């Protein structure tokens, strides 16, 4: 078996507060092979972005503590790096695409300057070479007039174009792993399709491993082979996309799926929602965190924490899976 492009083992994150530790990510582990895409889905505030930030090592050093057995890129550990070594890896081996391209780009520099700076920082080279690489990156995401885009300031581009430029920036160093944090949430549906298509294209061409973080199951279904469902900092179910949509095993996954509004010619069924509310991280219920909202919960669900089981590579953290 070959080494996965990204491998995360037993990653946990806590907030340190005066009233004690608040867990936000709880023993998360997964791996993505080169050229594969995996989705991480869950409601807002379930710890998806925290997971991404912890992988990149971008969480603040005070008030938050991170523990992991290992975080590896192509077999090379990045969890135990010091600050300087980590900065050499960020952007070169692992890059991030942000949710809001409008705010993730510096308004006072042109796109060309910003994309070029990323490459120059990690590989250096002559001005000519940097500019050529920058223009190639812009062309590879589908800009025919790369020179015009390079000369433009972020506010002169539309939302979709900004996100494409953001992708060009993330891929200019050809990283092994890209973390896309809600890459299409701020975009309209046609831009969304375009962005996902470009990302898929890059994924196959450069054999990049992509972690899609999204609350949008449609995005995950379109782009990912594997998917993880997260709730209150824990992975509830990990499976391939096909199986999740045809037969979700965890009651929470099933609940999420039933929340997707459907377009149909006949009168659609009323939109359903999962009863109850996401518990506050300061006040997590004992046992399975989903138990209070679960229709299938029984006594042991409220007492013990179910671990991920393994059924032919599909796992669900549930005592009474569907």
């Amino acid at each position, binding site marked *: 078996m070959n080494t996965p492009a990204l491998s995360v083992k037993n990653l946990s994150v806590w907030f340190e507060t005066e009233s004690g530790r608040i867990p936000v990510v709880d023993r998360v582990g997964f791996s993505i092979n080169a050229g594969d895409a995996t989705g991480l889905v869950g409601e807002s505030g379930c710890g998806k972005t925290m997971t991404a930030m912890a992988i*990149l090592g*971008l969480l603040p050093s005070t008030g938050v503590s991170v523990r992991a057995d290992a975080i590896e890129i192509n077999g090379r550990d990045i969890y135990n790096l010091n*600050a*300087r070594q*980590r*900065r*050499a*890896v*960020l*952007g*070169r081996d692992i*890059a*991030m695409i*942000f949710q*809001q391209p*409008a*705010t*993730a*780009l*510096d*308004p*006072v*520099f042109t796109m060309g300057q910003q994309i070029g*700076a*990323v490459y120059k*920082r*990690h590989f250096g080279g002559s001005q000519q070479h940097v500019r050529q690489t920058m223009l190639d990156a812009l062309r590879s995401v589908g800009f025919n007039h790369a020179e015009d885009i390079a000369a433009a*300031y*972020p*506010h002169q581009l539309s939302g979709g174009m900004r996100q494409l430029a953001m992708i060009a*920036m993330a891929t200019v160093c050809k990283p092994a792993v890209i973390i896309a944090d809600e890459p299409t949430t701020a975009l309209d549906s046609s831009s969304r399709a375009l962005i996902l298509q470009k990302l898929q294209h890059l994924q196959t061409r450069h054999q990049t491993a992509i972690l899609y973080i999204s609350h949008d199951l449609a995005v995950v279904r379109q782009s990912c082979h594997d998917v993880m469902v997260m709730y209150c900092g824990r992975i509830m179910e990990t499976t391939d996309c096909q199986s999740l949509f045809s037969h979700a095993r965890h009651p929470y996954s099933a609940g999420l799926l039933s929340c997707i509004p459907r377009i149909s010619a006949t009168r659609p069924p009323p939109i359903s929602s999962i009863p109850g509310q996401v518990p506050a991280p300061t006040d997590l219920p004992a046992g399975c965190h989903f138990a209070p909202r679960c229709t299938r919960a029984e006594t042991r669900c409220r007492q013990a924490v179910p671990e991920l089981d393994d059924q032919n590579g599909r796992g669900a953290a549930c005592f009474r899976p569907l």
Partner: protein
Amino acid sequence: MMRDTWQRLRSDPYGMGGLIVVTIFAVVAVCVWTGLLGQGWSEVSGNRYEGVSATHLFGTNLLGQDILNRTLFGTATAFEVGLMVTVCSTLLGTLLGGLAGWYSHGWLDEIILWAKGVLDSIPFYLFAAAVAFALQGNPWAMHLAMIITFWTTTARIIRGEVIRIKEREFIEAARAIGLPGLKTVFRHVLPNTVHILLVQGTIVFVAAINTEVILSFLGLGIQDGVSWGLMLAESSQEVLAGHFGNFIAAGASLFLLLMGFNLLADALQDALDMRRLPG
């Protein structure tokens, strides 16, 4: 960005008027520095208190010196003080404000805020006098006093702006491509405060010229050379005796330049307002 700003500035008649006035004064200052104008400011070229004539357009003063020449030379003095104080206090304020904002609520921030609080709490003219006495009449005492006290306002504004900017996503993005913290400050945070610095710079410039006049009037200012403040100090006796040459020349110049600068600062503030732009 600069082009958009220039377009907006051009469509503002008051701002353009201010710019023209400031430019004319700046040209005069440059001419004085290069020796083309105002060189005879200390020569006695006529009788005392001559009226307006072809040789002495603004008349002469008590000693028979040409008031026009003295006014022109005073322009150069005003610009010299204004530029020096603006550049130094803006650099100092940006640096200290940037560091305080980036490390907000850390020990460095505490020290900078403490220093700022101490300096702000000293009455300025008392402070200027203290510096002048401490430096034994050094000609740079006035400049120094202004630089030491004027950076605090710039630092306060920049600190607030940096705290606002550092929470923005592109700073997170800069970290995500492996840019070290301090480099991020100079590469991405401070460049985003340039529009504020430009406006704040013009305000400091005005304040510096204004303060120079007051300090010179009090005898704490310009030590050698002549300035509008010294001319106004002279005129305080002369006006009672009916000689208005110094008073009108220096007062009108001061008014025109400060008015021009204020109009320009106001127009710049509108033209540079980044918040109008999307993103």
